């Protein structure tokens, strides 16, 4: 496919060259996709953060371009635009609908098992204090690993499956990388009686066969694709585009064209809301720092979003450094990526000099996404969020450490967040309150870790 380079100016910034190959411009006649030029209304990245947040909040109240500063947007073929707009309208309707909210709340409580605990990790806390002359932070773990299906993915999958039903659709399509989102979607569809097709790359199916089995048992059809997650994602969007009005596309990550990032974040933000309430109960105020692993960013946004306006709360994202940031084999999008358009949104992404997407690597398969949520890109650029990374080895060490000290086996993805505690704790004052998001349980990773350790 031919590549064309654009260089477009706006009021303030020259944006980097973004290769056309990265856009889904399949239906466009020319290489200049008119929808690419819907780049008005960038917003002002240097404006006051509170105002920006208010702007984003306002934007969600009417069909909009879905921008977070300069990030986000709807870089999609024309055919999808009206679908996305319709989705946004329904999304706003359900947010205001007390019946939907009550049904969702009951399902979250009785089916998913919310609220998840905020657990004081006594031995982990003691471990870090012992290394620092008895001084160190108090570590609390937000237990998303206890949610039905063993990860935070369910919060979003359930809510969106309910939206699909409300829209009168009977079929759902989704893409999954590690499989967690696929399992959650299959589960929600089974509960609601919707037919479910999950696209997963053949390579990923090999890496996480247990998740494939779970989806099959739950009655979903698992369709293999070539390549990796980005290809599965593209395929599922293509199928959706071909069957608009029949099929619901269930986004699992806070990426993609508006309104997907906003919807996913909204449904995941229950994590942060609970955390605020539980923190107030347990120690009377907000946390000092919140730590979460970052793949595409849904669990991180889920816990961060509530605290974005509280400047005293440090928001710390930990990405996958794979074999190391210099190895070229990692998934540290915010650390090493550049801005571009991917899967319908402008965000940071891992691309080479020719603008081709780099294949990411991490032992935590759920972190192997070459892009990242546009909202996180915005939080990075505005300096509201800090981001670091952890290597495969550091993640496996953390996996074992948390299992041995607390009897909790964290998912390898979540282990990246725990790994960062090694560097973070010595820098924090005694008694600082940290909340670490344990986004999933690690039973699924036992084989991987066992193999890794035997090497």
């Amino acid at each position, binding site marked *: 496919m031919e590549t064309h380079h654009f260089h477009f100016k706006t009021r303030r910034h020259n944006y980097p060259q973004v290769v056309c190959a990265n856009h889904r411009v399949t239906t466009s006649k020319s290489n200049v996709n008119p929808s690419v030029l819907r780049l008005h209304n960038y917003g002002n990245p240097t404006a006051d953060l509170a105002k920006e947040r208010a702007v984003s909040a306002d934007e969600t109240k009417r069909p909009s371009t879905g921008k977070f500063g300069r990030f986000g947007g709807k870089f999609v073929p024309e055919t999808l635009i009206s679908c996305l707009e319709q989705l946004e309208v329904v999304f706003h309707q359900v947010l205001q609908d007390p019946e939907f909210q009550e049904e969702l709340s009951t399902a979250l409580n009785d089916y998913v*098992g919310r609220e998840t605990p905020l657990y004081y990790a006594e031995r982990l806390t003691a471990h870090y204090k012992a290394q620092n002359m008895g001084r160190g932070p108090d570590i609390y773990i937000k237990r998303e690993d206890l949610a*039905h299906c063993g990860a935070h993915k369910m919060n979003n999958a359930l809510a969106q499956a309910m939206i699909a039903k409300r829209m009168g659709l009977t079929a759902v399509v989704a893409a999954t990388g590690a499989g967690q989102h696929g399992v959650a979607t299959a589960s929600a569809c089974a*509960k609601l009686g919707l037919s479910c097709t999950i696209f997963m790359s053949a390579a990923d199916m090999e890496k996480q066969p247990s998740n494939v089995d779970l989806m099959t*048992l739950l009655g979903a059809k698992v369709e293999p694709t070539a390549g990796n997650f980005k290809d599965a994602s593209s395929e599922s969007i293509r199928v959706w585009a071909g069957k608009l009005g029949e099929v619901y596309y269930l986004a699992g990550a806070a990426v993609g064209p508006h309104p997907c990032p906003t919807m996913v974040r909204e449904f995941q933000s229950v994590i942060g809301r609970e955390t605020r309430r539980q923190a107030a109960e347990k120690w009377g105020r907000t946390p000092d720092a919140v730590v979460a692993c970052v793949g595409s960013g849904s669990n991180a946004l889920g816990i961060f979003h509530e605290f974005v306006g509280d400047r005293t709360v440090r928001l710390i994202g930990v990405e996958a450094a794979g074999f190391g940031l210099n190895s070229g084999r990692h998934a540290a999008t915010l650390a090493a990526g550049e801005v571009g358009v991917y899967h319908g949104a402008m965000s940071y992404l891992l691309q080479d000099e020719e603008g081709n997407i780099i294949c990411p690597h991490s032992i935590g398969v759920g972190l192997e996404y070459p892009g990242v949520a546009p909202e996180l890109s915005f939080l990075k650029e505005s300096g509201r969020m800090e981001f670091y990374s952890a290597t495969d080895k550091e993640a496996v060490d953390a996996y074992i450490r948390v299992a041995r000290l607390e*009897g*909790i086996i964290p998912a390898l993805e979540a282990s990246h967040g725990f790994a960062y505690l090694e560097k973070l704790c010595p820098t924090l004052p005694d008694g600082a309150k940290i909340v670490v998001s344990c986004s999933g349980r690690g039973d699924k990773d036992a*084989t991987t870790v066992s193999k890794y350790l035997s090497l």
Partner: protein
Amino acid sequence: MAIAAAAAATSPTTARTTATLSPPPPISSSSSYSSAQLNFGLPKSTARPRTTAGLSISCTMTRDAAAAVAVTEKDDSDPALWSRPDAFGRFGKFGGKYVPETLMYALTELESAFNSIRNDPDFQAELGGILKDYVGRETPLYFAERLTDHYRRPNGEGPHIYLKREDLNHTGAHKINNAIGQVLLAKRLGKKRIIAETGAGQHGVATATVCARFGLECIIYMGAQDMERQALNVFRMRLLGAEVRGVHSGTATLKDATSEAIRDWVTNVESTHYILGSVAGPHPYPMMVREFHKVIGEETRRQAMEKWGGKPDVLVACVGGGSNAMGLFEDFVKDKDVRLIGVEAAGFGLDSGKHAATLTKGEVGVLHGAMSYLLQDDDGQIIEPHSISAGLDYPGVGPEHSFLKDKGRAEYYCVTDEEALEAFKRVSRLEGIIPALETSHALAYLEKLCPTLPDGTKVVLNCSGRGDKDVQTAIKYLKL
């Protein structure tokens, strides 16, 4: 009569015990034993307060096996008045403490410690906090809409089915309720070493989990054959810091692992606490394990009241050793209008000889320290049970279940491997909940139960564990 009076003084219930099976020797009321000799080292008043009207001191200790106890009719019919257990740890004739002398002291010490924490507000607060923040209680009582629809009859009538979601607990099964309680008890006793037996690995993982949480040394005994079948659970236990010791004796399965664990305990009783995984074993284990699990039924009562303003009509649970069933049933045993239904494993079928339907096909005997129903051949050797679900693959059953069965308070049925697998798939596809194969036995029984229930009957089924661990097995057998 002096002897009988003395017996009554130490413990009112000894007058009603059939002393047929263990030391003490049979006594007749005319012998001249002193009250000191009659005191078998029992702790004072561990029995529940009895409200027997007109306490008749009739000492009915005999030489005959299983002689009927003289019982006044009005005591027998009210479950609230049953001794569950009595001071000897008996549920009627079941239960007891059939163990070597060396363990008697440890069991007594354990019982005292347990009784002291029962009413200790600090202990209960600590336990409650851990169950909430670490285990994730309380677990939801979930209305299974599509399952209810599935059983709706053509005229629109049918029962309402609720699932008690023990599968949402940390480690994915109800086992952890007991493991947490016992490890806190062990800490209180100053023990630093914990041992346990495990079949499929669930109880082993739960034990290893709580030992990691509280920093105690952990040794798990597992049959060598089971270790091969459950390699992943072995890895999890080791990951959590436990030592997994393979047992090669006998058939190298759960019953052999249990025997080995008991042997270890006899040797190391001073330093070691044995976390038994079910409501089996010698007193006080059946009672203790039940008490730690009864939170399940207590929550259910409260949630039922919230949801429909009443009690459940029917409780259904799978029965292997019987802990999840006792956990759900316990709070409702005294409510005679609540039906209690236990479902065992019929394996390849009751006539195949390859099953684990202890209460249906077993006979009374002693296994692992307790008198109960068990699967034994004509020579009294334990029959190797079979079930597709390892957790139900136990040739015995908790003595309290044997008691409830004989009293007619609870009903017990069984379900084959095939029926359980069908239920596994059915519930996965209808509710998006993958139940453990053990739990699937209870779910399978709904097929037979629901058509018989009047419209609007409230059924609560204990979803005792999640089925991620059984996915490989199920896919293989279901040929999906």
